[in-house]
């Protein structure tokens, strides 16, 4: 059950988001690094949690049923994995812009708009990899669950349990895609910090882009290292929870 740890860990990780004023010798304003880590995690974890809620049921539904056009649906999902993030950013920008269909919600340059674009980016890989994992579950497991009197939901849960490693991989792939992309969050988020250096819509990736733009490559590298460490940590946590799920 990989959804649970991801969703519940979000607050815990964010609470520790207060960062040091200096990191490996590079000077940052008080709270700056902590706040961009917090925004990165908040946006990407929320987007991935929402994507997972949509993708895993969709993958199970597609994987456990036979219908005409199934191959076509699969190739659409697979194509979605290759969506360029800037294009997704532009589409979300048109949607949330004042002139767009969602304009009245005033979502432009907010974290919510960033969550929307990362949701669009993360859903195809999570769906596609989950689908592959679900399809790989032995038919015998499904049949056994059904013979034992399980409802359709019971069968689905058994299949999810069997495919949990694959699904965990899917969620991690989605998270990796979301947290590392820069194109769409820059367009819809605007890379905003407040005047005192606390991030509003600046993520690690857009902060790296900003530092590189100003020729501060060392600072950009340090933030890059923070991003890699963050992804490693999230991976380690998810894997650990996955193992504990087996032991329990």
């Amino acid at each position, binding site marked *: 059950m990989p959804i*649970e740890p991801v*969703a519940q860990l*979000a607050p815990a990780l964010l609470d520790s*988001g207060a960062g040091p004023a200096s990191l490996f010798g590079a000077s940052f304003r008080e709270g700056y690094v902590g706040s961009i880590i917090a925004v990165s995690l908040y946006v990407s974890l929320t987007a991935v949690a929402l994507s997972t809620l949509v993708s895993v049921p969709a993958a199970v539904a597609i994987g456990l049923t036979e219908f005409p056009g199934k191959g076509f649906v699969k190739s659409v999902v697979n194509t979605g994995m290759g969506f360029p993030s800037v294009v997704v950013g532009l589409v979300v920008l048109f949607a949330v812009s*004042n002139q767009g269909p969602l304009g009245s919600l005033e979502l432009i340059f907010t974290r*919510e708009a960033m969550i929307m674009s990362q949701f669009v980016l993360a859903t195809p890989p999570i769906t596609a990899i989950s689908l592959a994992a679900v399809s790989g579950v032995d038919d015998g497991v499904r049949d056994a669950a059904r013979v034992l009197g399980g409802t359709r939901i019971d069968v689905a849960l058994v299949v999810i349990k069997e495919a949990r490693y694959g699904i965990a991989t899917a969620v991690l792939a989605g998270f990796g895609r979301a947290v590392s992309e820069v194109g769409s969050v820059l367009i819809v988020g605007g890379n905003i910090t407040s005047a005192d*250096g606390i991030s509003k*819509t600046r993520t690690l990736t857009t902060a790296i882009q900003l530092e590189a733009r*100003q020729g501060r490559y060392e600072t950009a590298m340090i933030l890059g290292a923070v991003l890699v460490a963050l992804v490693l940590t999230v991976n380690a946590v998810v894997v650990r929870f996955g193992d504990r799920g087996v032991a329990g």
Partner: protein
Amino acid sequence: MPIQRRKFVAAVGAGAIVSTAGCSSTNDGGDGGDGGGGDGTGGNGTDGGSAAESVGVAGETLTLTTTTSTYDTGLLDEIHSDFEEMYGVTVDAVAQGTGAALETARNGDSDIVMVHARGLEDEFMRNGYGINRRDLMFNDFVIVGPESDPAGIQGMGSATEALTAIADAQAQFVSRGDNSGTHTKELNLWEAAGTDPGGDWYQETGTGMGEALNIANQQGAYTLSDRGTFISQRSEIDLTILVQGPIEGGPEILANPYGVMAVNPGVHENANYDLAMAYIGWITSPGVQNAISEYQVNGEQLFFPEAVSEDPDFQQYVPEGWSSDDSDS
């Protein structure tokens, strides 16, 4: 089986909490730092008013689209906290090129723009999108390049002659190529020089000023830069100023004036016009103009205020060359 179903419900619930918290934190502009809407703080979106109950705009957010040159020099971060404290509001500064900043405002996605390309600003005003323009401050453009100076433009008194020399020598030149104020100025200069740049030596990079300076630095190329960005980045690069702008006695054609305009609430009724005008009043006030002139990077002044003056300057409120005689054009 039932146990697992409960787990699943718990996971769904947790996810739902995260997502709702995300929605309810839309208005909490003031506490962007604890972006952890997931821990429940997102619910207090209405507490922004505590800062200054008496002011009608307290707790609101002003979205300012501006250029990379004002943002990357650190000027806005330096002065904005004063405005935020005074009104109890948040300023969201979005750094784009001048063209993109105006386009964002044209779509009604920002409340105010601060840019530096008078021609584009005038078009913006003539089309009705911007009102109440004020001259804000100026600095100047400089032509920078490698110390070896292959085109021999060092010390030239004319920017157009320098560009012609670069073109004749086919020396590497990096263009912003991003429809920014600096790019617009560069194209105007080429036009004034009577040269149509092109060929292997002329590269359009489509990047911000800082990146363009980096690229020019790595390739030993010339480029046109605003003085502010060049000064703030000078310690990172080996380029040097070869043709000075008017601040250091160079030609007037290299002047770089910045203007600020409110988005017309008659066109975009959701524009935060009250706060935009409060901002314009604030940033053109003697105190803040003074703070702008005192802002230094590496010991050098970057911007020269020009909003406060004894003499009237009506042209700052209208498109350049506009007069009431041709008002119906």
